[in-house]
């Protein structure tokens, strides 16, 4: 109703003619609806007046909090840029912080891992990132000008206590901190002024150009833009003298006037080129494929993502040493045996008329498989771990086999899937059993931030299915499942994580039968998994409860079994609703890996908190490392949360 006069005005302003005014009105109203009215401000001054100083009380609040922010920023700046800071401790120990004692001459393995992930990311982005998602040029210009202004403000805010020469080295008149005059200090920071000025001018020019529509595009593709931005730090490593810092044979080398070491800038340049190439390849594939083929590409790509942590850790990083005698005489025959026998069993279980008998056989198999584990626990009879695992997998697949009964094509597909699964499982099991050839001075293969990521990734991958199963069990109609799941969840949620970790790290090996021992990192991962699963289960349960009753009834009415209903109808909807809390839990898990330091793993926190401060060159330098580590954690957690928001938007959570 409000815009009625406006639309009428628009109608009369148009070409006059014998047009039914009602029709034009409707058309105009529709046009108005297509573009929602945007709140526009004529100038920055207006924006400030309306948003910051709209009333006396608001003005007071703005001023008070503005001052607070200024003081905090000043404190942080003076801390970070003080010449007393030992940032060399961080710069020199980057390798230690990220991978701890992983041997230098094997470092190419680390880069292969990073490269694999980078290529997968590039492919995914190229294939699936939406074209529609662009960054508005207007927004870019605002951010540029804003960053420029922030830099300028920072330059002014920072206490004029040190004199920095043009080459970046600190120049002092005597050993005491010299108080310069304010203007002298300001003049000495000309590089920063220049940067601020360039950014502000560029921002304003861009904005003008967009406003006057001299530039025909109003936004750039977000992904391409982000990748292009990454080129800036990579290129700067070749050009700008960030400094050359290294520990060589325990001696500390710091050459401030040089560019970054080759061993850093070459790999990062390669990584950047890889991501660009992978993305271009993805785009090319996308252009060649139709919608359906693109959807089909998701499956192999997702499988690669799922498989990559295992392959990278056990194959690339460990470089296992295979004893070929044993492989030929034991491992291969065993894999083939399980493959063939399993295939036979599944082929039989998917015979069209098998009916109830199939279910009984599957349950018997499950019973035997479970008994194998119990027997292992009490040491009744010995059996290779992978045989136990294969048996369990066979039982689980057999339970689901009736869904594939009937047509020969489906049966063959199930059997093929089984053979592939066995090949993969036995391949990895064999490699996991083989000793590593990468020798490190510590007990663990790798430490630092790498171990944080590894534990977090495996925890998330393992706890997710476990959590979903627990949630399903807790909402099951069968009391035995319900009681078991509920008590598990309540027990875990009532115990502090650190207790669980200590239990698993120290006590677990005492409980295990002789000859079965697991490493500190593995047991910690187990503890994290069991803990995180309980919380995930509660999140998924919330999602399950939000699925409407009508969905259950409709599934029943078309004849879906309980399993089919759960897998195809209920879970997809429940998980979609629980994405935000699930990602929250994942981020929490990621951050909680910092507890690893307490049980004696050399994780990234321990590097900053005790390893670096113990080095003779950097004795007691702790704060810089901790600040840097916090920054690294934050970057990862923030990226995760941003990605989850994108996922939510794409799946349309909250709209239906």
């Amino acid at each position: 109703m409000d815009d009625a006069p406006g639309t009428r005005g628009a109608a009369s302003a148009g070409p006059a003619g014998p047009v039914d005014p009602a029709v034009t009105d409707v058309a105009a109203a529709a046009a108005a609806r297509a573009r929602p009215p945007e709140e526009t401000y004529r100038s920055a001054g207006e924006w400030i007046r309306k948003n910051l100083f709209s009333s006396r009380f608001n003005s007071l609040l703005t001023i008070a909090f503005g001052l607070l922010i200024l003081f905090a920023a000043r404190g942080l700046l003076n801390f970070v840029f003080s010449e007393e800071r030992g940032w060399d401790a961080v710069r020199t120990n980057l390798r230690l912080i990220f991978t701890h004692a992983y041997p230098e001459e094997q470092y190419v393995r680390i880069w292969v891992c990073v490269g694999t992930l980078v290529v997968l990311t590039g492919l995914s982005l190229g294939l699936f990132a939406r074209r529609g998602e662009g960054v508005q040029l207007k927004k870019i210009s605002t951010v540029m000008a804003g960053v420029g202004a922030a830099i300028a403000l920072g330059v002014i805010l920072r206490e004029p206590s040190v004199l920095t020469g043009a080459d970046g080295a600190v120049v002092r008149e005597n050993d005491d901190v010299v108080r310069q005059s304010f203007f002298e200090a300001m003049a000495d920071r000309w590089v920063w002024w220049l940067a601020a000025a360039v950014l502000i001018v560029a921002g304003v020019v861009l904005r003008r150009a967009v406003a006057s529509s001299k530039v025909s595009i109003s936004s750039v593709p977000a992904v391409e833009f982000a990748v292009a931005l990454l080129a800036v730090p990579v290129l700067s490593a070749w050009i700008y003298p960030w400094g050359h810092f290294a520990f060589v044979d325990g001696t500390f080398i710091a050459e401030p006037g040089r560019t970054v070491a080759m061993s850093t800038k070459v790999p990062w340049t390669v990584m950047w080129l890889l991501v660009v190439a992978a993305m271009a390849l993805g785009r090319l594939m996308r252009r060649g494929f139709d919608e359906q083929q693109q959807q089909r590409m998701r499956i192999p790509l997702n499988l690669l993502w799922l498989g990559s942590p295992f392959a990278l850790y056990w194959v690339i990083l460990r470089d296992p040493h295979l004893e070929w005698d044993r492989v030929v005489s034991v491992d291969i025959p065993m894999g083939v045996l399980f493959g063939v026998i399993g295939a036979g069993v599944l082929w039989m279980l998917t015979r069209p008329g098998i009916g109830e008998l199939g279910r009984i056989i599957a349950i018997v198999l499950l019973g035997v498989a479970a008994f194998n584990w119990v027997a292992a626990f009490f040491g009744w009879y010995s059996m290779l771990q992978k045989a136990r695992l294969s048996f369990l997998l066979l039982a689980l697949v057999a339970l689901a086999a009736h869904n594939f009964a009937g047509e020969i094509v489906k049966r063959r597909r199930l059997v093929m899937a089984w053979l592939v699964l066995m090949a993969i499982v036995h391949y990895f099991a064999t490699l996991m059993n083989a000793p590593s050839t990468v020798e490190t001075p510590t007990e663990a293969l790798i430490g630092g931030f790498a171990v944080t990521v590894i534990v977090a990734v495996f925890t998330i991958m393992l706890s997710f299915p476990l959590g979903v199963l627990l949630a399903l069990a807790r909402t099951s109609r069968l009391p035995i499942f319900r009681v078991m799941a509920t008590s598990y969840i309540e027990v875990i949620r009532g115990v502090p994580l650190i207790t669980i970790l200590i239990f698993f790290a120290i006590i677990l090996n005492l409980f295990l039968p002789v000859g079965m021992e697991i490493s500190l990192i593995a047991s910690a991962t187990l503890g994290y998994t069991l803990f995180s699963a309980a919380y995930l289960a509660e999140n998924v349960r919330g999602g399950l409860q939000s699925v409407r009753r009508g969905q259950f009834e409709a599934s029943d009415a078309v004849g879906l079994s309980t399993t089919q209903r759960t897998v195809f109808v209920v879970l997809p909807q429940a998980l979609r609703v629980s994405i935000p809390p699930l990602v929250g839990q994942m981020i929490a898990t990621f951050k909680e890996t910092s507890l690893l330091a307490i049980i004696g793993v050399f994780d990234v926190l321990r590097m900053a908190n005790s390893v670096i401060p113990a080095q003779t060159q950097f004795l007691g330098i702790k704060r810089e490392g901790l600040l840097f580590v916090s920054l690294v954690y934050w970057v990862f957690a923030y990226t995760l949360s941003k990605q989850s928001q994108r996922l939510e938007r794409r799946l349309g959570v909250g709209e239906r």
Partner: protein
Amino acid sequence: MSDEREERDDSAAGRFGAHTYQRAQGENNVSISDATVAVSDELAARDDMIVCRDVDKWFGDFQALSGITATIKEQEIVVVLGPSGSGKSTWIRCINRLEAHQNGQIIVDGIELTNDLRNIEKIRSEVGMVFQQFNLFPHLTVVDNITLAPIWVRKKSRPEAEELAASLLERVGIPEQAEKFPGQLSGGQQQRVAIARALAMEPRVMLFDEPTSALDPEMIKEVLDVMEELARSGMTMMVVTHEMGFAREVADRVIFMEGGEIVEVGTPHHFFTDPTEERTKLFLSQVL
């Protein structure tokens, strides 16, 4: 008997095409007691599709159905009428075990509904159901909504199921919406997808629980047209509705319920012009 069914089950399209509109008017106007007597020595007579005998249903202390006895013949269209809360939905939902009845017998196509899961599975795949709230799966496209059950329950191959879905969408008049999600369709279109989804299981009976009650008036007709076409093709249908026009024109029999009981049964002509029971008259005076 099984041979006969095999032949009919060939394909939905074939079956609907082969059977012409061949219902003898009036023949089905059997009183309830007659039907009961007719099947008393056997589980059910050959052409009895749904048989209910003395069905009782309680929700806690509240009796929602008491002594429901009725028979629905093959290819018959039965409309169930009654005031709100009279137990119409409860009855229709008992027939495919969305609710469990407590006393009496329900026999669908010769299979008795018991706690035996296999019987329930069998009956559910023979009985299609359309809900007032559509209950489409919001995370699946229209095609996937329709093909889900044929692929996983009927074990059809995907191309086969998709072909079936395409022909069914054609039949309900929305072939162009196949790749959309339910949220992108109008109410009438959603309900037609729901009908196609039920038909994809090639059911022998279709149950409709107020299929048009959640629709805007202009969409009611498109759904009723589909239902009428379905009736003409020879499907056995049990329809709970407040659309008196549909009852009058399409139904073979009208069953009037109140307070969980069947009050009156008759042809539409009998029912709308000359009802015997006082309660029926009162109901009709309110709705007509």
